[in-house]
């Protein structure tokens, strides 16, 4: 597997990276490389240049301050999965990151690369959606923020502009009474999610549900939020029956099928996996 010829840049700052990206419209940003390099080896992607942001220190930290968790774009899945700070403030993200690929992939792949690549079957997009993550991006005109719900536009398409780089992911730290779960039904070949469900529920003092979200990977062209199902749980006692009844109405728009699993089957999987994620989140709340 031999990629086409490309130039290689290794900027030492975000500003420099953005500048090179602006100057090279055909360039691709290289972080962990575990999505980009395989498609280059198959010559499905033939970028004129790679901009390796893997050595930019500013993109590497995990911090928590003022109720907010901040994760640099080049933090690896392995670091996220095993970070005590992430496990405490956003356990859903740690759980999803720990289920990506295999050990080698988790040591190289990064959160920024994952979300920017926007593979709908990858594990982090649904978690980012369910956690209401804010994504910070830098471009030639400075920085801006995008909510996860506005970030995923279509199949492997985000609202990032061609000259912008995702730099940081910000998540509000989980409050008391909140439980979450990421449950994945794995495609036996790729290990990607045939259906992955990210659930977050919050219980009030009396035990009834005061907030819920349920998002899916793998079922349609982007990670999607099942807002209706989540909303119908608010006020309920989160019993198995309440969850069953809520997911029975689940219908994911534009569900997509492939040779392994049809769209209809993925809809049914989403019900089963979604209910399982909600039950587990409830038990953890």
């Amino acid at each position, binding site marked *: *597997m031999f990629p086409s010829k490309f130039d290689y840049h290794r900027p030492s700052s975000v500003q420099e990276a953005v500048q090179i990206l602006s100057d090279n419209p055909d360039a691709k940003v290289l972080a962990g490389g575990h999505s980009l390099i395989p498609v280059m080896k198959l010559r499905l992607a033939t970028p004129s240049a790679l901009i390796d942001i893997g050595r930019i220190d500013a993109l590497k930290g995990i911090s928590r301050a003022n109720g907010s968790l901040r994760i640099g774009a080049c933090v690896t899945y392995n670091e996220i999965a095993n970070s005590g700070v992430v496990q405490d403030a956003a356990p859903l993200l740690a759980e999803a990151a720990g289920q990506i690929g295999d050990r080698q992939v988790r040591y190289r792949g990064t959160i920024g690369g994952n979300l920017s690549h926007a593979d709908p079957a990858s594990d982090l997009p649904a978690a980012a959606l369910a956690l209401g993550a804010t994504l910070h991006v830098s471009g030639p005109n400075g920085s801006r923020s995008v909510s996860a719900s506005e970030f995923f536009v279509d199949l492997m398409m985000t609202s990032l502009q061609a000259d912008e780089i995702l730099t940081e992911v910000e998540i509000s730290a989980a409050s008391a009474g909140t439980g979450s779960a990421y449950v994945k039904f794995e495609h*036996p*070949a790729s290990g990607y999610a045939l259906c992955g469900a990210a659930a977050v529920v919050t219980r009030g003092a009396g035990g009834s549900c005061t907030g819920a979200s349920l998002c899916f990977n793998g079922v349609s062209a982007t990670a999607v939020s099942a807002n209706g199902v989540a909303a119908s749980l608010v006020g309920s006692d989160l019993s198995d029956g309440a969850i069953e009844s809520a997911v029975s109405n689940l219908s994911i728009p534009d569900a997509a099928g492939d*040779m392994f699993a049809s769209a209809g089957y993925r809809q049914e999987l989403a019900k089963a996996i979604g209910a399982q994620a909600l039950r587990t989140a409830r038990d953890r709340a």
Partner: protein
Amino acid sequence: MAGESNGAAGFGSSIRRREDPELITGRAKYTDDLQLAGMVYCTILRSDYAHAGINSIDTSEAEALDGVLGVYTAKDIEASGVPGGVPVGWLLPGLKTPEHYMLAKDTTRYVGDGVAIVVAEDQYTAHDALELIYVDYEPRDGVADPKKATADGAPLVHDDAPNNIAFDWEIGDKESTDAAFANAAHVASLDIVNNRLIPNAMEPRAALADYNNITGELVLYMTTQNPHIHRLLMSLASLGLPEHKIRVIAPEVGGGFGSKIHHYADEAIASWASMQVGRPVKWTATRTETYITDAHGRDHVTHGEMAIDADGRFIGLRVDTYAAMGAYLSTFAPAVPTYLYGTLMSGEYDLPAIYCHVYGVFTHTVPVDAYRGAGRPEATFIVERLVDEAARVTGLDPAEIRRRNFISPDAFPYQTQVALAYDSGNYIGALDKALEAIGYDDFRKEQAAAREQGKYLGLGLSTYIEACGLAPSAVVGSLGAQAGQWESAVVRVHATGKVTVYSGCSGHGQGHETTFAQIVASALGVPYDDIDVVEGDTGSMPHGWGTYGSRSAATGGSAIASAAEKVVDKARTIAAHLLEAAEEDIEFEDGNFFVKGSPDQSQSLPDVALQAYLAHNLPKGIEPALEATSFYDPANFVYPFGTHIAIVEVCSQTGNVTLQRYLAVDDVGNVINPMIVDGQVHGGIAQGIGQSLYETAVYDEGANLLSGTMLDYAVPKAHFMPSFETDRTVTPCPHNPLGVKGVGEAGSIASPAAVVNAVVDALSPFGVTHIDMPVTSEKVWNAMK
């Protein structure tokens, strides 16, 4: 000798594989690791169309690229005057053998068919140049399904094979079988697709060809399971070089599963390219190329029926199969769905009437050939599925109906209705052992209780037989093989008593360097560490036929045993002379020769070896040195058998199948190294589980391969597997000197039926009687609806 344990590392010992330290630490050298001075690289442009005419090929831009040494098409190969063929090595009566040339001439017949060759200074340039070759294709319709391909009007793969039929083959007795069905109290009937598989050896195929245009000699390092077969076919059919001017060497080979038996165009192309540019040429398949060039396996569409009398006894079996051959006949392809398939239809059962009919069918796909098990997994699957269906239609327990129909242990040798004569077996013994180990009666209670709770458990039995170590050569030849099936060995005792063993087998993961040394350690009484085993070099050893079909222990191991016996005989003669005693009074024990009753006065084998080499004092008429060669042609196939049991749980919400337990009781005869045998069983089971639950090569209606990468083709992963439970019974092979059978394919032959029988058992409350492989969660979920 068989079964003896001579020292800690002799026959029967679970010593660790001596191959592993180099393999695990990355020190081992595979073909692609080799570098020769002046080496250049070759790539092959492949058809993106399943079926297309080639109007023209423009190579000028590719030729102009810096670093490109040459770009060639079929016309250039023709102009060079070499034969250029890729032959089939097994002929059946009436077999259609359309021309298979090293590159497509005017028509491409599958996605992957070679169209042009680039030779360049480096691999990147060689790949870049492929994109600069412009082929004017005229796309045509293709067909991938072997049954649909026989329909009138289906696109033809070869104009001279009407209805795409390569051969029309039958075995058994149609009349008596039809009569059995006319008298049957019950009939079990199933339509089955045996899914097409892609081999996925860990190491892709590769070749490094070094042609010396002064001596006319070609040294070809390649990924092969049988270097002598490749040398023969390179010489006769592809390159036209004299056989003695070709040396084929197999460096370390990283798995094959059959895919490295076959003679493909690619290694011949690298060799031909070296002849053109006068430099060593390396070709290494990308993983994408392995998917579209390595011969695939299975791909049958079958209707099978079992006739059963009122007492639950099988009285007839009828099988009708459409077996894909792919676009061309691969090396041993015609044998796989015929003599390795129809002959296995009796299974472990006393079946008085059998009829099996097979169409071999050309399709616009990668050629199909032997893949771990080769015909026998397909046969076992149809037989064992029908046996379970027979249990269902008669209301008998699946274990009971097997018990009622097994060939009895005292009925051997047993002549089946489909040519094979089973030499030995004890099928009830293996079944009983497996049922007891799994706790069969308790499981049935647990299963019933679980169903009450809405939990669906299933148990599947597969009581399999396999025939491996094809032999004798005269019989194999009468069936159409253009090859012998004996095996060679040289046992050379050096002057110091150290031993080098040369085998005509060619291991690629089986552990021959360990197990063959164990055989010799016991035979000669020489320490295991003093014995080396050499394989895989046509320049170093006598002709051999290689490693496939679970043949190496039974044929190659037996050849080594008989060569070792010749060495002992000669050494005994010399020892008698040295001990001044009559030869018949000499005993041989633990590597020492001594006169009966006087073990303290002895000559060790190294003592004798030294005298044999010095040749100062040899008996009259005895030649110097101490070595022997054996060419061993077995009397019969060997017949391993056993019982495999799978227990599955089916998730009623998602249809997901989880393997809870997998238990195998195999009878492979005497065991040389129990750990290696367990490893072979584990690997085979994993591959069979892969076929039954995960793997399938998917072609669309136009014969485009959809499952062309590992993102879509599900090679099973370790965490999908339960911890296997293995056990054995031992029924030694009665006709070879070691009493060994074969084990490489047993797991992949037995396990698909065990798994699918278990899933169907779990789903019986839903009225399910069959699910085709791979049993994906969606298929199960649909079946439960």
